[in-house]
């Protein structure tokens, strides 16, 4: 499972960070950083929630 973020769409609103702070972080520079691009299967549910809650549809999961 690989996290792909379309940074042209992402507006750094940190919604994904609230759901999965171990995977996403919006830093003081207002950019989003993916902390772990290839998380284990145990994070799939949280990641799917991030995909659904991202208002810009910027996150996808590549299998």
């Amino acid at each position, binding site marked *: 499972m690989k996290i792909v973020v379309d940074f042209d769409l992402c*507006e*750094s*609103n*940190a*919604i994904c*960070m*609230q759901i999965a702070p171990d995977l996403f972080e*919006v830093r003081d520079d*207002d950019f989003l950083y993916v902390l772990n691009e290839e998380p284990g299967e145990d994070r799939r*549910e949280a990641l*799917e*929630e991030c995909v*659904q*809650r991202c*208002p810009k*549809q910027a996150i996808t999961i590549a299998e």
Partner: protein
Amino acid sequence: MTRSSITIVGASLAGLRAAESLRRQEFDGPITLIGDEPHAPYDRPPLSKQFLAGDWDEEKLALTKPEKLADHDLTFRLGTRATAFDLATRRLSLDDGDSLEVDGLLIATGARCRTLPGTEDMEGVFVLRGLDDSLAIRAALDAGPSRVVVVGAGFIGAEVAATARERGLDVTLVEALPQPLGRVLGDEMGAVCADVHREHGVDLRVGVGVDAIEGDDRVERVRLSDGSVIDADAVVVGIGVIPNTEWLEGSGLEIDNGIVCDATCLAAPGVTAAGDVARWPNHRFDEFMRVEHWDNAVEQGGHAAKRLLQSDDEAEPFMPVPWFWSDQYDRKIQLAGRIRPDDDMQIVTGSVEERRFAALYGRAGKFVGVLGFNRPRHVMQYKTLIQQGVSYDEALAAEI
């Protein structure tokens, strides 16, 4: 609570996210989504932004991928409208003549635009809610109208005005209130939005109503309450929405500016509602709310879905901090919480002059809202503080 099947009426954002979350809760019975639009679920916010600008195509609007849908084994009945429901017999009637007996029912029929009476069939006059509306307005903008008049400077109207301006068109934005977005943001912050639109060359007219939209078959001009007349060949009306509940009249469900639910999103035993159509008491703010925001449709869809699988004892109240965004020009405006015109307000980061700031709102010592202009991260972090119920002073002192 075990359910043999779940039927969802309204196959858009709240309905789809509800179905997806049912599968995530490991509900493996049949799920049927009934939607009157012919399109597979698509996202609405870009309809006044990237899609209207012509930068995006239809494919980009999809709310989910076909493989995902197949994975979730959902049955879609698109192009099909629910015409009635009877709570006593649990029978749902459809416009193709069919009727179904439902076990769990989730209602997510959203809202539709208010129109100006007498203009519904006039060519060149539009409202904006669905894909077909956006396509029609986009075609009208492509045709290079001499002037676009936008009636109503709420979020949709303000975004359409911004998009049309960015396409180089002459735009007049008409608002009956003293400031654009005034109903939500209050006059002081509404005035900042007014400046942003004027700086971008919008002819903004506030405090005036529309007396008439005139023309034979096609719109030709808009007559305002101050006596002025604006020639226009495209008019977009953005004067708010009405929840889609007419089909539930006589159903046995309580309807009052939306489907009335309890604090857990339950409208009746085995019936829940979510998204723009649902009204429920949000205990966090001691207020009955109906929220017309994207994020609420997603979150409430999930909550209402889960509620259908829970017993009354397990059910939890739905207490979100409402949050929305609006993109106008290069400004990202975001608001979290519930603010009122007479709340205390203080800017904590940036400044109005830079058009980049966060403003915090307090009421009776409680921290109730945050407004951001190009401060998405701050808004989300302050939203967490609202969730935690901190005092206004604590919020002002917080280091974010």
